[in-house]
């Protein structure tokens, strides 16, 4: 069973993503804070990271860069609303920084599951 580290500061989104992934058979470790997430990742094995981008204190772009500095191969799904902006393509940056798959919020459960399996398949190849 794939073990997923979920980093999302929004309680509602975190729970929704967690339940969706658990129902699909994934083991999910939810974390609401990027620093805690990086500490967790350094001490345990995960098959995949699913991270939000806009988070307080340490944003998801920094999380991706730090993970890529330490754990080169682990697949990362980056998700973001980041909708109001006309100045920046947040998910484009996430991809450039090393996200395996990106996911625009809001998304349907099937889109999440598809992004997760796409990232896992990509990593396995």
């Amino acid at each position, binding site marked *: 069973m794939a073990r997923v580290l979920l980093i999302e500061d929004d309680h509602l989104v975190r729970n929704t993503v967690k339940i969706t992934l658990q129902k699909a058979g994934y083991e999910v470790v939810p974390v609401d804070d990027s*620093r805690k997430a990086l500490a967790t990742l350094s001490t345990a094995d995960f098959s995949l990271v699913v991270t939000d981008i806009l988070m307080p204190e340490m944003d998801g772009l920094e999380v991706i860069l*730090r993970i890529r500095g330490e754990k080169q191969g682990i697949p990362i799904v980056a998700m973001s609303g980041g909708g*109001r902006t006309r100045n920046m393509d947040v998910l484009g940056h996430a991809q450039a920084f090393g996200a395996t798959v990106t996911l625009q919020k809001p998304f349907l459960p099937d889109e999440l599951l598809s992004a997760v399996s796409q990232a896992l398949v990509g990593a396995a190849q």
Partner: protein
Amino acid sequence: MSIGDLLKGLFSDDAPPRPRPASAAAAGNVEPVLNDLTERLNKMLWNRRAILSGNIHLLGLSRIKEHVGSDWPRIAERAQDIAHKAIQRVCTPDDVFTRYDELSYLVIFANLTKDQAQLRCVEIAEDIARRLLGDNFVDEAAEVSTGVFETDGSLIFNAISKQDLIKKLTGQLSSRASVQKGSGGSEEEETEPSFDQFQMDKTKALASLRVLYQPMCNLRHQVVANYFAVATATNVFGATIWDTAVRAEFAAVLSSTEFDVFVARNVMRDLGGHMAKGIRILMGWPVHFDTLATRANREAYFEVCREIPETIRQLLVLELDGLPEGVPNSRLLELTTVMKSFCRTIIVRVPADFRRFEVFQGCNLGAVGFSLSGVSATDAQRISLMNKFVEAASRAHLKAYVHGLSSRAQVLAAVTAGFEWIDGVAVEKPVQAPGQMHRFSVEDLYRDLEPLSG
């Protein structure tokens, strides 16, 4: 173990805090407050600022409450509001404060010694008392405790009195005077040191004032093409203060007009020098509403503005700050019309929770904005504030800017919220002299990530 480690341990999940507050009333449910404080302390530690034992102070209102008696419930909310603002007014962006319970606040001054910080707390307590009760109760109002760590890592608050503090500080000054005398000091140096030696006068204030330039990023064009003048100074306690904190600090000795004229003259000189070298950049500077409020002040200020050559006016952005609540549209129109003749565009700085943007209708403003450094909130709350601010400004067809971004996460949140202009140490640090226009990219923010601490 370092004090930083102790603090981290003190506020970590496995080692719950055990503060013993000065007042019994402080023994309520403090968990949310401590969580908030933990978050901000972590940030302080993250930024590698030292937290020293004796730097944590508890500022109480219970003596004021006792004095007010049965009227307290009626004025409690106002008292807390006044206390919050009084603390906020003297805190620099490096300091941390938070409400501890109904009757007390925790304050940590990042750059003051223990004695300086205690004195500052006494001043705040007196300010609160004066605003609430007038001058009669001021001497009895101070209720300050200082936290010190015990060997087991717990935090104990020891109450101090103003009298003891003055005695201690004047004792220190006496010792210094004796040392000076011993090393050939003159008769004048032997004069009795007093509490007044900690007061600022106009000469000291002006001598301490400097103007730095905060690079401001235009997000639409991803370029730093604008430098914003920021006043900085050293206060009587030797701490560096910035921006509106400088104005507040020197308010007793420097009028708003004097302050604004000082900044304006500095900017004109520096921008003139740049023009002479063929460098063309936009330059912003603040002007306070008080400076423009009365005819006499306004004229003194505009007299300086009239000296600005036309070529420089085309590069100036004037930021109107300190708008009083409820200022009518007609008044704003009148002011902005006159201001407009001296600059390229006018922007207005308002409080972060300001929403009456319709008052700016017809004022032909370049943008509205606020400073995040003056906002006492968690990072998550700051991000939420930024989103709400841009939404509200957009509804009024106004562009928005934000000063004082201090972390990458805040920058990213500001970019995605839709601000047109952003600045702060997380974007670029203030500089002594404005530089050339240059590109800004989000990638630059993430270059050279420092190692994680803690």
